């Protein structure tokens, strides 16, 4: 068939060079893989797992005549179930991205000036090691901090720990899921984790508070969301914006931003006052219910109405709807939960609402994840730090479960409790991940060493002293993924193609750096395969089988109380803490209470941000395939307001925040699908990194406008939905 025989290989004009130069590399790798010296013909399938977001979906990469063709989900993988999300499907674009980092770079002028020298790995790592030793000599090894996101950072973490610093963190805690995990931890004694332990596929009633599933594309959750829809689950969506999820909802509650806690309190009030909660469950597993009930008695739906803008009757109706389907009612804990600074208490209220519905540990609620036992590699013990971690001196944020990025940033600026002089960042762009960019830059200016390890030249790389180009996930091994999910399994990431230029995998970078630092004893293994085989063999698993299939499943374990899972609540009381004595003892509300958020000034809108299904953070805008799907973001403004202000749909506008920061120009989306008191945009656009040629200057950056944040007093999370903007015509 002619139409088909003439089908052409993916044509990416801007990436021609990369493709051409990579062809040789691919062939070489393929030769090595086959071991017969003949370039492979036909289609090869290699299992691995994805790294475009950090969900770690199992995948199968396809090579056609030795060249990367496409990537699909691995049907054997419980996370992807054979289907990747759009970002994963477009993941091969990361390989073809001609803007990707190609060789190690050392800054030749002062920070902020874009002058670099391309150097060898030996020179780059030698330079870094020298600087690290100098910092260690003057300030101690703790003066080095590592910001690392995702599984890929395992070996770099190992190296800096071996060097002697405890200061290792990721924005995923204080800028993202931290409040949620702390709120649930304070209530049930356990965290939500990632992938979330939400049993969406069995939910008969699903409540989403600001969670825009479907736009937020965490694969398994979206698959299960669709399954729940197919099963006819009752869906309740609370969002100031008529999200995709809202369009699937039986009840859409267009809440006034910042008042979610009032709504949750009112829901609990209804469940308690109408006696609709799971009395048996609460009696059996609950602690301090009486005090809790007394505390929420005042938060009636009538009280909540003026706060939230949600009519009392609708609050009652939805509360009853939740009760109708309990315990298979899941009030989703969300993921990005750093909104207003009261986030841990809001998350705790959500945990308590779930507790009233009896959904924790129950089918259709929260399952208990299972995991396989894969022993770690027996390394020598890490040196003990006497100084302790730098981010949270005096346990200022007593419930922080993980180190706080912004705490390290603050210590870097102030030198207290002790100076931080070296930063490593791995796969995280702190310029856009942390609120208040000027503060981040201030901290960077205080550093003696900034090393950025990444696959693309991000804004953060622009500030670096040394940039180390990492191989993409398609070109490297990483540590084995021992997943916590419904069913236990381990998964392997393995190279599919060779790196097209002088990029190196994280394990190689970390090990070579360790060697330069005289820490060879921490890397007893010679090759990554040897390391992986050692760990897997210890676990009684076959490395060869894992290479062949990508996934090895473990024996099923009970996920629910009704399946024989033993109910355990590792809290202070050993029960579900409706009333928290640990909070009380630290001077916080033992039962969540409500405080009204600051209102936007007249003429201004609250700035809200979220996700698009085709991009991960700010990491994928230069991926040619995903950029082709969405090459700029838009600012959503209520259509009536837009008309009143005289802004046409599709015209370019700029946003000015309360501190006078003006955004890049951004397309206006005038729509009925948003409240009139807020604007919304997708995070990750408005790049200023000039080397991201495909995306620089396209769209606006919410991060740039987030100059204010409210810190959560419980755990140090940075509430970022507290910025207000006005809309201006593009000058």
């Amino acid at each position, binding site marked *: 068939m002619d139409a088909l025989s003439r089908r052409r290989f993916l044509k990416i004009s801007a990436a021609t060079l990369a493709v051409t130069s990579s062809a040789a590399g691919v062939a070489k790798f393929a030769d090595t893989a086959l071991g017969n010296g003949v370039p492979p013909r036909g289609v090869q399938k290699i299992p691995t797992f994805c790294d475009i977001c950090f969900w770690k979906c199992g995948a199968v990469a396809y090579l056609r005549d030795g060249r990367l063709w496409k990537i699909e989900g691995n049907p054997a993988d419980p996370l992807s179930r054979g289907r990747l999300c759009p970002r994963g499907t477009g993941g091969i674009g990361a390989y073809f991205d001609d803007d990707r980092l190609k060789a190690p770079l050392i800054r030749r002028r002062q920070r902020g000036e874009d002058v670099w020298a391309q150097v060898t790995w030996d020179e780059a790592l030698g330079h870094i090691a020298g600087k690290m030793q100098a910092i260690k000599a003057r300030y101690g090894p703790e003066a080095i901090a590592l910001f690392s996101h995702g599984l890929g950072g395992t070996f770099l973490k190992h190296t800096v720990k071996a060097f002697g610093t405890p200061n290792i963190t990721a924005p995923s805690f204080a800028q993202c899921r931290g409040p949620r995990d702390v709120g649930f931890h304070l209530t049930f004694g356990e965290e939500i984790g990632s992938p979330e332990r939400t049993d969406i596929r069995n939910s008969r009633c699903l409540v989403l508070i600001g969670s825009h599933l479907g736009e937020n594309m965490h694969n398994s959750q979206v698959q299960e969301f669709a399954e729940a829809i197919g099963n006819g689950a009752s869906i309740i969506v609370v969002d100031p914006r008529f999200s995709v999820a809202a369009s699937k909802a039986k009840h859409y509650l267009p809440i006034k931003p910042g008042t979610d806690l009032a709504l949750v309190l009112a829901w609990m009030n209804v469940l308690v006052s109408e006696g609709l909660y799971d009395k048996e469950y609460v009696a059996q597993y609950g602690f301090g219910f009486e005090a809790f009930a007394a505390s929420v008695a005042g938060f009636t739906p009538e009280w909540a109405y003026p706060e939230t803008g949600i009519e009392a009757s609708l609050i009652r109706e939805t509360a009853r709807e939740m009760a109708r389907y309990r315990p298979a009612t899941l009030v989703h804990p969300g993921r990005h939960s750093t909104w207003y600074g009261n986030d841990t208490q809001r998350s705790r209220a959500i945990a308590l609402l779930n507790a009233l519905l009896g959904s924790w540990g129950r089918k259709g609620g929260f399952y208990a994840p299972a995991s396989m036992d894969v022993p770690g590699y027996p390394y020598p013990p890490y040196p003990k730090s006497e100084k302790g971690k730098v981010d949270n001196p005096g346990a200022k944020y007593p419930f922080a479960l993980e180190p706080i990025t912004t705490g390290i940033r603050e210590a870097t600026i102030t030198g207290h409790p002790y100076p931080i002089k070296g930063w490593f960042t791995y796969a995280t762009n702190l310029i856009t991940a942390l609120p208040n960019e000027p503060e981040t830059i201030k901290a960077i200016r205080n550093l003696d060493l900034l090393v950025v390890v990444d696959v693309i030249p991000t804004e953060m790389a622009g500030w670096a002293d040394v940039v180390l180009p990492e191989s993409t996930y398609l070109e490297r091994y990483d540590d084995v993924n021992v997943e916590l999910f419904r069913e236990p399994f381990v998964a392997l990431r393995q190279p599919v193609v060779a790196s097209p230029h002088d990029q190196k995998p994280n394990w190689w970078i970390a090990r070579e750096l360790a060697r330069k630092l005289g820490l060879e004893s921490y890397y007893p293994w010679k090759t990554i395969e040897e390391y992986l085989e050692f760990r897997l063999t210890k676990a009684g698993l076959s490395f060869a089988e894992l290479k062949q299939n990508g996934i090895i499943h473990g024996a099923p374990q009970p996920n629910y109380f009704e399946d024989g899972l033993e109910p355990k609540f590792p809290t202070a009381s050993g029960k579900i803490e409706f009333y928290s004595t640990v909070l009380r003892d630290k001077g916080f509300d033992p039962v969540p209470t409500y405080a009204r958020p600051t209102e936007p000034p007249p003429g201004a809108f609250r700035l809200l941000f979220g996700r698009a299904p085709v991009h991960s953070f700010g990491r994928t805008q230069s991926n040619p395939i995903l950029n082709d799907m*969405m090459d700029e973001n838009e600012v959503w403004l209520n*259509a009536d307001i837009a008309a009143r202000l005289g802004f046409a*749909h599709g015209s370019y506008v700029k946003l000015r925040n309360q501190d006078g920061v003006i955004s890049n120009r951004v397309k206006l989306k005038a729509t009925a*699908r948003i409240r009139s008191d807020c604007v919304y945009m997708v995070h990750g656009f408005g790049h200023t990194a000039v080397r991201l040629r495909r995306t620089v200057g396209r769209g606006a950056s919410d991060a740039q406008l987030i100059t204010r944040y409210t810190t959560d007093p419980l755990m140090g999370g940075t509430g970022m939905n507290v910025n207000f903007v006005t809309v201006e015509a593009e000058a």
Partner: protein
Amino acid sequence: MTPELFITRHNELVDPFVQVWSWQIPVYLFLGGLVAGMMIITGFSLVKGRYGERSCICSALPGVGLVMLSLGMLALFLDLEHKWYVWRLYTTFQPSSPMSWGAWILVLVYPVLIASWLVRPPALLEDLSQTVERASAWLQARPQAVRAMGAASLGLGVALGIYTGILLSSLGARPLWSSGILGPLFLASGLSAAAAFTHMVARNEHERIEMARLDNVALTAELGILALLMLGLFSGSAPQMAAAGLFMGGAYTAPFWVFVVALGIVMPLIIQNLAVAHRIAHTPLAPLMVMTGSLALRFVFVQAGQMSHWAHGVLGVIRH
């Protein structure tokens, strides 16, 4: 509240609305229509036996037609995206495709034009070539054959003229074009342009007046057909009404009413009526206006048609 439609597609030539054809196709359709009109006029002269006079317009029109048609074909060729496969038109006949019909009609049009031309070739050509002279003499000696050829020219002219309209109206996706009346409209317009051209260049006073009369008839018909077309659209479905709206306050209101209707039809109609009634002299002004109007009609219909859409009028379309 206006419904909102957001589409993630952004295909070149298709979004935000179809723009597959720019100047080449309107020019092709205009020249095609003009040649069609010329063939009708030539055919009429041949059938009527006027080729005996050297001043007969049938001496010049086929030659001009050959040039115009070739220019039109060149415009069409320039528009093709896969140019070097153009021969594929002639390895098949697709009965449902007006363009295929058109391709084959043109195969017939060329020999008929050449033959018509040879009946009474310009003196210059006769002087240059003995073969032409001989062929001409041979034809003139056979009035039956000439009449048959005239009839063929008439018939092919009508087919060609209608084809230029049907080409668009067969593309059912565009509500503005979705009317068979586009065939007669473009035929009338082509005939009026050809009559105007002839009116302008004819050396024979009798023919000039005759052409002005013919032009007036064609223009009147064109006006009537346009009115019917608009009426049809306005009494049609929402998308058709929205399509008509392009001329009634929409993007093509000014070009349509000013260049097509006022300057292209009404004004020349008035001028030529006065000329025919001997109130004013015959000048090239009105014919030039008619031809410009005829070209404008193609431009306006091709462009506005591409903007019209079955989803319009049903939805307030907002695209990414």
